[in-house]
């Protein structure tokens, strides 16, 4: 059988690639995965940023978000015209920073009088209570209302006789009352209807006002009404004196407001630009923050017609919310970069292994071509072409897969990054392919020059790692880290440095083992240790992969545990217990009902005592909060608060005081709580949060008779439970016993803290990094083992012809993999445990955990142990697979092939 021969260079290359395509497929798959990840990361980050700033904008209500300016005119200032204000606002918008300008909607201006008491109309024989009204004017108010009954208000001017000096004592509107329209809801609450005339009095003048019509708001939930809530509904309140008060706001004709000012009603101006939350994008976020702050600094200059150089202050909560959001994004990105740099390093290392395996397969052809005169450049070009042919289609597929998985965001980076990933195989092929050369080399015959080169590279790596770590630690935490190359690269450098140390120190240990093995009679120990020293199966790249993979997996679990514990800690210290119930009096039956709930471990009840002062012989603190509690139960819930205050000490009531009071009231001193003599026996930290501030005194409920006139009436329950689900059950039990109670549990605080998209993104990223790290490290072991298979299979086959038992082969392969993998795993795990300390020292994690204090490192030993064990199991499997493959190699054929 013959085939048609080709003489074209490209056809020859294609034939050469097609001849042995299996590992090329592996490299292509690796490229595809890398390209897909490279496409996903920019998209995911973009989505994360967009979600995060949207979350920040959406979590604010419209009035909080809108750029608002409110001012009241000083006495003597002239009221500006609406049109003048409109021009001012238009120019303000024109001059705003572009990012902010894109956000600002058409401005609104509402002028409002002060609230004035109003006598109800005569027809109301039984008014609902005291009425107060306020008049609002907006030139565009008709756009926002639907008139339901009556008419729109007519413009009102001050009657001519008002020019009289005595006019303000006159009833200015006896015949022509001031018209205004009310919302139907307001009218209903205030028992008013169309045509009702109210008499308002201010500053001695009397003004008649008439409800000319009733309206319903157009788009009641829209931005306009969110900024003018008093116009849509009347407010009802009492001051605890059993007098019902109602306040309502109605629109007058825009022209009327000038007349109202003329009769000495104080007028305030509120102007605002609606901010479209949907237009808040990550790209604009910083511009928006700067724009708002610039506007707030400059304020809005009111028209000159006012007669004063008046500036109206500008406010919005959007800038602070976006700043916090950007901080979260920055921290998340810096942590994600930190987590990604390791796996990226491993990916390159694993790639190098895969490419090396391909190049090894091609080495016969490369060697021959080189011997026949192919130059390094020709070999590199051929290898690079093969790399391109392998990488680019896979990269395109990966990019498309990423686009299908996450269609949104990413921009050009989402396509360029996968293509760059597609070039990685070509680069590695060119790099490794050319180095193969034509001379077959033995791993143990290291040329002197190469050894020196390696030493220099290693010294540089270790030096860089040390310098980077020192720089980071000296720099300390920075508020808004963002993508910080130093922070991102340091763990990779550290991992490289410890890999170098492993590869340098392990041979020393192995040599000692080898020396020992020479004295013993066993072949396997001798040969195994000799091969491990002279022909190591796993080189720098595989060792690096294992170190980094294990390190990243352990590190990720540490970051998660730290953030989880930090969030939990912040939530607990904010609440004071797993479940906190307030807002009702929890009597004994209610307390015991809660205590009986399964999963509830302790219930501590806290109630008020009468005293507001704590006195000692040389002084007295006023304004303290005196508390009663079952102190034994409270101690069980909050260990920091001393318990056992139920028995008198030397005949006096023992009390515990908050830390802030200790200076003035030393522990052990006698004093008096209100009028009752007490002995100060202990203190509790301020963050026990028993009182509203740092000044409180706690006594046991056993002394309720002496300390509280009403007895022990606990208005707060602190509950500890066994688990999160028990906390939910406990919360339900409290609600059942006391429906009015407000119940919060730590889990819901944690959930709220986790709600920010950056948290979710960080969680996903951390888990992905952990999985990627573990997976890559496993691949590295398999790939490294596969790359070394030729030499191993030959050795095993040769030994089998000499009568090596199968168990011997296992021992031989174990010597190859186990020492290096164990050492790399141990070092990687140690580095992974240490890195969270570097992170907490250099990155502020509070944007994620909530709370204020520094976040303590928390290690999840169980998870870290599982990762290490899992990893060793992977190594075991790799060893077994290698042995099985080695035993499949045909000894006859292998031996016939002869020496290399």
């Amino acid at each position: 059988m013959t085939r048609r021969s080709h003489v074209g260079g490209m056809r020859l290359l294609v034939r050469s690639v097609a001849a042995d395509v299996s590992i090329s497929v592996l490299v292509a798959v690796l490229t595809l995965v890398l390209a897909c990840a490279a496409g996903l990361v920019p998209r995911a980050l973009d989505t994360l940023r967009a979600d995060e700033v949207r979350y920040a904008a959406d979590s604010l209500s419209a009035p909080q978000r809108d750029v608002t300016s409110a001012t009241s005119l000083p006495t003597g200032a002239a009221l500006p015209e609406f049109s003048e204000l409109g021009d001012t606002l238009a120019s303000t918008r024109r001059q705003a920073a572009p990012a902010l300008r894109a956000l600002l909607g058409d401005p609104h201006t509402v002028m409002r009088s002060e609230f004035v008491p109003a006598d109800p109309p005569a027809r109301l024989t039984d008014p609902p209570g005291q009425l107060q009204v306020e008049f609002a004017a907006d030139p565009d108010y008709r756009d926002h209302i639907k008139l339901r009954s009556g008419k729109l208000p007519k413009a009102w001017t001050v009657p001519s006789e008002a020019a009289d000096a005595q006019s303000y004592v006159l009833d200015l509107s006896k015949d022509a009352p001031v018209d205004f329209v009310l919302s139907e809801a307001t009218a209903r609450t205030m028992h008013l209807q169309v045509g009702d005339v109210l008499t308002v009095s201010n500053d001695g003048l009397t003004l008649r006002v008439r409800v000319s019509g009733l309206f319903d708001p157009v788009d009641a939930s829209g931005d306009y009404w969110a900024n003018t809530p008093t116009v849509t509904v009347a407010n009802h309140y009492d001051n605890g004196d059993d007098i019902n008060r109602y306040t309502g706001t109605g629109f007058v004709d825009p022209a009327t407001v000038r007349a109202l000012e003329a009769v000495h009603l104080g007028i305030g101006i509120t102007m605002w630009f609606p901010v479209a939350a949907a237009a808040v994008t990550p790209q604009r976020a910083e511009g928006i923050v700067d724009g708002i702050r610039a506007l707030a600094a400059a304020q809005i200059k009111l028209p000159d017609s006012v007669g004063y150089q008046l500036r109206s202050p500008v406010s919005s909560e959007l800038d602070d919310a976006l700043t916090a959001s950007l901080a979260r994004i920055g921290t998340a990105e810096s942590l994600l970069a930190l987590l990604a740099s390791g796996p990226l390093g491993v990916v390159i290392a694993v790639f190098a292994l895969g490419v090396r395996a391909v190049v090894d397969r091609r080495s016969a052809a490369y060697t021959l071509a080189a011997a026949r005169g192919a130059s390094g450049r020709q070999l590199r070009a051929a290898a690079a072409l093969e790399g391109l042919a392998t990488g680019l289609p896979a990269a395109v597929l990966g990019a498309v897969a990423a686009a299908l998985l996450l269609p949104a965001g990413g921009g050009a980076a989402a396509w360029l990054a996968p293509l760059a990933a597609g070039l990685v195989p070509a680069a590695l092929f060119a790099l490794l392919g050319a180095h193969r050369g034509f001379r077959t080399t033995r791993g143990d015959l290291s040329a002197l020059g190469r050894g020196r080169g390696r030493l220099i590279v290693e010294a540089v790596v270790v030096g860089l790692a040390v310098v980077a770590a020192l720089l980071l630690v000296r720099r300390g935490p920075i508020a808004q880290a963002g993508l910080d190359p130093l922070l991102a690269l340091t763990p990779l450098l550290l991992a490289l440095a410890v890999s170098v140390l492993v590869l340098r120190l392990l041979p020393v240990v192995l040599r000692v083992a080898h020396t020992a093995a020479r004295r013993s009679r066993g072949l396997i120990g001798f040969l195994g240790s000799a091969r491990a020293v002279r022909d190591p199966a796993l080189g720098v790249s595989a060792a690096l992969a294992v170190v980094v993979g294990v390190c990243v997996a352990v590190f990720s679990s540490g970051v998660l545990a730290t953030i989880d514990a930090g969030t939990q800690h912040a939530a607990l210290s904010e609440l004071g217990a797993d479940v906190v119930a307030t807002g009702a009096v929890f009597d004994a039956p209610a307390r015991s009902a809660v205590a009986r709930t399964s999963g509830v471990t302790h219930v501590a009840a806290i109630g008020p005592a009468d005293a507001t002062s704590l006195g000692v012989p040389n002084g007295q603190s006023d304004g303290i909060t005196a508390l009663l509690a079952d102190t034994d139960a409270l101690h069980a819930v909050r260990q920091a608060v001393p318990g056992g205050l139920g028995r008198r000490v030397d005949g006096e009531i023992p009390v515990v005081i908050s830390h802030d009071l200790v200076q003035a009231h030393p522990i052990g001193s006698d004093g008096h709580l209100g009028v009752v003599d007490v002995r100060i026996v202990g203190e509790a930290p301020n963050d026990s949060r028993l009182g509203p501030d740092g000044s409180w005194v706690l006594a046991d409920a056993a002394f309720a008779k002496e300390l509280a006139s009403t007895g022990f009436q606990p208005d707060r329950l602190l509950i500890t439970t066994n688990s999160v689900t028990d906390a939910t059950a406990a919360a339900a039990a409290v609600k059942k016993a006391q429906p009015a109670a407000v119940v919060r549990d730590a889990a819901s605080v944690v959930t709220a803290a986790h709600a920010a998209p950056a948290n979710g993104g960080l969680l996903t990223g951390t888990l992905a990094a952990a999985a990627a790290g573990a997976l890559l490290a496993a691949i590295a072991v398999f790939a490294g083992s596969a790359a070394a298979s030729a030499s191993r299979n030959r050795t095993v086959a040769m030994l089998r012809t000499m009568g090596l038992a199968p168990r011997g082969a296992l021992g031989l392969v174990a010597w190859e993999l186990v020492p290096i993998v164990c050492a790399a795993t141990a070092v990687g795990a140690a580095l992974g445990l240490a890195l969270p300390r570097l992170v907490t020292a250099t990155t502020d994690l509070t944007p994620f955990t909530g709370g204020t204090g520094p976040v303590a490192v928390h290690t999840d030993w169980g998870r870290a142990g599982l990762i290490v064990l899992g990893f060793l199991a992977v190594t075991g499997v790799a060893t077994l697979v290698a042995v099985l493959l080695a035993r499949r190699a045909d000894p006859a054929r292998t031996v016939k092939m002869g020496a290399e």
Partner: protein
Amino acid sequence: MSDIAIQCRDLVRIFAAEGVEVQALQGLTLTVERGELTAIVGASGSGKSTLLNILSGLDVPTAGQAHVAGHDLLAMRERDRVAYRRHTVGFVWQQTARNLIPYLTATENIALTLAVAGVPRRNRRARAQELLELLDIGELADRLPVQLSGGQQQRVAIAVALANEPEVLLADEPTGELDEANSALVLEAMRGVNERLGVTVLIVTHDPGVSEHVRRTVQIRDGRTSTETLRRTELTDAGEEQHVAEEFAVLDRVGRLQLPPDYVAALELRERVRLSLEPDRVEVRKGDDE
């Protein structure tokens, strides 16, 4: 152009492993003239493959001098080496599998070598066919190596080695894996190209049978050339062809020579010998011979 194709003087090559040092060549001296067909014969480990690797530009000597077709092998830079391998030397190795790329046909193997040297594509097929015809295997052009016998493979390998018209053809145990008949075919093919193309051929082998096919055989021992056998055909007085082989000891630049082992054994020469200069010869006698 000088008439010397290969000139080696005091060549030393030392391999160093961890704690082990092997001196493969210990001051080897060899001169091969242009157009000569020479065999280098030696036992395993005598250093002959090391010599060939150096001559082919694949390895660099530790010390000494080596010139091939005017190229100084110690002074060549990488780029010179590439050109040297392309145009100055061609090789054939012992393992037939190592000479040819297994998934390329005979023509393609030759074409690859031509492509490497930048021969235009249109000329490659004709050149490949010409070479294969020269070696009497023109009909095997489209066969894969696996479809060829060992002897055929080695002849394709010779064709590949000659593709870019080298001045020197180096062969390392070209018959090592072949039976006698195939060996003879391959060696005759080499003699054929030597005669027809005038290319200098150097064959390294441990097979003493090779010397039957070449005019000059150089023995190499412990990293040095020891003796040479020159073979010529004479006509006897009766007009018959007669093969005459004469063995010479190699005298190096500083006057050292190696005595053949059988001479040493026959006279039980040990440690010290007596030398005496006669008008036309040097005599070597046992040291205790009085």
